[in-house]
């Protein structure tokens, strides 16, 4: 019997015309931990979702035990012995721990559920994971994120799969739980399970994986034997892209401060955040997911209640209690989640753009002609690709959708533009266009705040970077200090600075 259990060949995938995976081939062997690394948006999760049957490839083949299979849905993949632990938690919050672990594969006794058996089995599995203190009868809702992640892992373990996919399993775990997880992975490996381990934490990959495949912009950059490759080499392969061409020249900020925030607090989320933003400056906010950056921005523009905090605009004390106030003061916010918060997907492009500024288009009734003219301007400016401007935005690609949201933000005629993950999930070309736009925007004394989890973006764009951790600003980086290492050291709390 050959050791190779899964082989994916020449996988391509596109979403609404935007190709995200290009000719990817990857394979997994029995008793092997196969690492998959790459930046955000490199296509790691997409590839794994295809292997687990959640997405269908646009072209390409998947072979299991050398036989071609059609993984048309997750149930089919499960039957082939493939289980995936997702990055986002997929637990039913209102069900108990054991009910979640056995969801969809309940143990029955005749027609009825055998609860006692399931509870017992859950206890065993959790014990294996070193999580004796999780009560199988507890509602999942009441667990911490880390414990939820462990339940998710327990659920996957209970499948007795041959191929186990873990998508960033440790992002919510503490060191202690990570250690247990690694022990478990080693045991599974002994049993001959093939594990795909998706991560962007190079250290972990180096520790736990046998081979590692690097993805960048939807392409395989290389497959490496972990014992023969250094972390630095992997990092270079991951980032690779010629950053210098991607980002425009950094602007030169003026000396005047446009906005100053003092002691901004949101209970439990943002702690005593104070900073200044200069005219013509691009200020970056870096940090891990959940560091409180989005909450800080939302509190600043009045979308979230703040417990305290003072804001000075051009030296003048201003009060921002709702987004309307911020809008009047020329502060615009591009939300992190464009489908949830940025766009009304059922509406056409024109109506989305002017939704925030309809008062400018009012005679007695809405002046639809004027709206249309304005939308045409934005289409030119941002090169929005669409059938026509009456097309509903749900049918646009991610990049074009983001351009619509950006147009909407500009409708406010902002002096300060706050961009939260401005290029998440969009293609490189559009990224480039957005970077150019940001650089041009600040040229005539306007200012921009960029919140991003993509370090390269922060490094490439910003004059100054504030790093947040657990709701606090923990570092201010300028010039040469702005590099990946420094940011990560502060973001993870390894290095601390009194800011």
């Amino acid at each position: 019997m050959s050791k190779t259990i899964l082989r994916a060949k020449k996988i391509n995938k596109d979403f609404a015309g935007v190709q995200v995976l290009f000719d990817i081939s990857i394979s997994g062997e029995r008793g092997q931990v196969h690492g998959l690394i790459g930046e955000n948006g490199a296509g790691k999760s997409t590839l794994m979702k295809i292997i687990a049957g959640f997405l269908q490839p646009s072209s390409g083949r998947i072979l299991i035990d050398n036989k071609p299979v059609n993984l048309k849905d997750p149930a089919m993949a499960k039957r082939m012995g493939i289980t995936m632990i997702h990055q986002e938690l997929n637990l039913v919050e209102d069900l108990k721990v054991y009910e979640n672990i056995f969801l969809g594969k309940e143990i029955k006794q005749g027609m009825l559920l055998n609860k006692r058996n399931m509870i017992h089995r859950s206890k065993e599995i959790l014990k294996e994971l070193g999580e004796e203190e999780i009560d199988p009868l507890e509602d999942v809702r009441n667990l911490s994120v880390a414990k939820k992640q462990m339940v998710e892992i327990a659920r996957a373990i209970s499948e007795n799969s041959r191929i186990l996919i873990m998508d960033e399993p440790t992002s919510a775990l503490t060191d202690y739980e990570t250690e247990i997880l690694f022990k478990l992975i080693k045991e599974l490996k002994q049993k001959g399970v093939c594990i795909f381990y998706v991560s962007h934490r190079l250290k972990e990959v180096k520790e736990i994986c046998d081979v590692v495949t690097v993805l960048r912009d939807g392409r395989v950059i290389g497959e490496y034997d972990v014992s023969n490759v250094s972390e630095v080499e992997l990092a270079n392969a991951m980032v690779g892209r010629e950053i210098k061409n991607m980002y425009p020249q950094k602007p030169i900020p003026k000396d005047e401060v446009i906005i100053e925030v003092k002691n901004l607090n949101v209970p439990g989320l943002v702690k005593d955040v104070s900073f200044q933003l200069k005219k013509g400056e691009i200020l970056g906010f870096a940090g891990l997911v959940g560091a409180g950056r989005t909450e800080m921005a939302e509190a600043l523009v009045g979308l979230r209640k703040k417990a305290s905090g003072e804001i000075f605009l051009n030296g003048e004390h201003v009060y921002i209690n709702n987004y309307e106030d911020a809008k009047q003061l020329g502060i615009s916010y591009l939300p992190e989640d464009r489908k949830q918060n940025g766009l009304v997907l059922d509406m056409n492009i024109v109506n989305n753009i002017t939704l925030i500024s309809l008062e400018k288009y009012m005679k007695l009734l809405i002046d639809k002609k004027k709206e249309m003219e304005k939308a045409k301007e934005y289409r030119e400016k941002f090169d929005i690709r669409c059938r026509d401007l009456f097309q509903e935005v749900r049918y646009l690609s991610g990049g074009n959708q983001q351009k619509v949201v950006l147009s909407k933000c500009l409708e406010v005629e902002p002096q300060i533009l706050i961009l939260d993950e401005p290029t998440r999930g969009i293609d490189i070309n559009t990224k480039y266009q957005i970077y150019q736009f940001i650089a041009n925007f600040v040229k005539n004394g306007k200012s921009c705040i960029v919140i991003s989890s993509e370090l390269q973006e922060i490094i490439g764009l910003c004059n100054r970077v504030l790093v947040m951790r657990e709701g606090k600003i923990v570092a201010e980086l300028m010039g040469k200090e702005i590099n990946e290492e420094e940011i990560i050291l502060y973001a993870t709390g390894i290095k601390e600075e009194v800011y």
Partner: protein
Amino acid sequence: MPLESKRRFIDYFKNFNYEKLGSLIALAALFIISGIANPIFFRPLNIMNILRQISYVGTIALGMTFVIISGGIDLSVGSLMALLGGIMIIVINQFGGNVLAILIAMVVGAGLSVVLGFGTGLLITKGKIAPFIATLGTMAIYRSLVLYFANGGEYRSISSIYPKIGGGKIPLGESFFIPTPVIIFFVYAIICHIILDKTRFGRYVYAIGSNESAAIYSAIKVDRVKTMTYMIVGFSVFLTSLMLSSRMNSVSSTSAGLGFELDAIAAVVIGGTSMKGGRGWIWGTVFGAIILGIINNMLNLLNVSPYLQGAVKGLVIIGAVLIQRKRS
């Protein structure tokens, strides 16, 4: 046809929302079938009868369209109709039944309808009660009050002028006339269309129904807009109440407005407005109401048992929603 206008013509149909076209096609088909099935159908008197009958529930449905597009629902319209009618008749009798009394009653009715709508809006936006539950509650309260004030009986107006409002008709030629409720219904439909399609408020209603969160991130005062939709439906109920109570010159506390909420919702849904919110249009509701009216009328003309009419109506509603599903 010159190229440009031809292209525009084609674009128009490309962009045309087939959810919308559906109800129009259904109406046209029903119209022709009914005419063939029974030629009496085409008589102007019959047509006017249908239109008059639908204008009551139809007017409520126009208001309901706003609420449903914004993602809500109002189950209290039938009870509210009876309550407003009852109160207006009490006021008319109190002030002697003359023109002034009627005017006072109208002001009281309109004011009350809007105030109650505002209250419902507050329950839903500030009290954060699901619209279905909140209006289920108000529905029970309104009906109970109507019954209590009349002690389970009837409100009778002493006015001899009042019936002229709902029972009035405007003659057009010798044997042809338009009943006032029909005129009120269509004028109100035009006003509603303008509000929904051409004002900021209307645009916001769509935005909130489709994605409330995005509306908040667009600096829209969501609570205010939602509350206003309930005030509009309240005012619509007032119009219907005025038309119906004046036509009968009385209001039955037990049966007035019974089932109106379901018929109004049915008209909105058949017209292509999505129960999920975010999509819909006023003319669809007009078509939906007419479709329901024609079905009732045809079943009568064809001597179908009145007990079966509910089943036919139910099938039409389910069919309409199924078609919407297919499209989306």
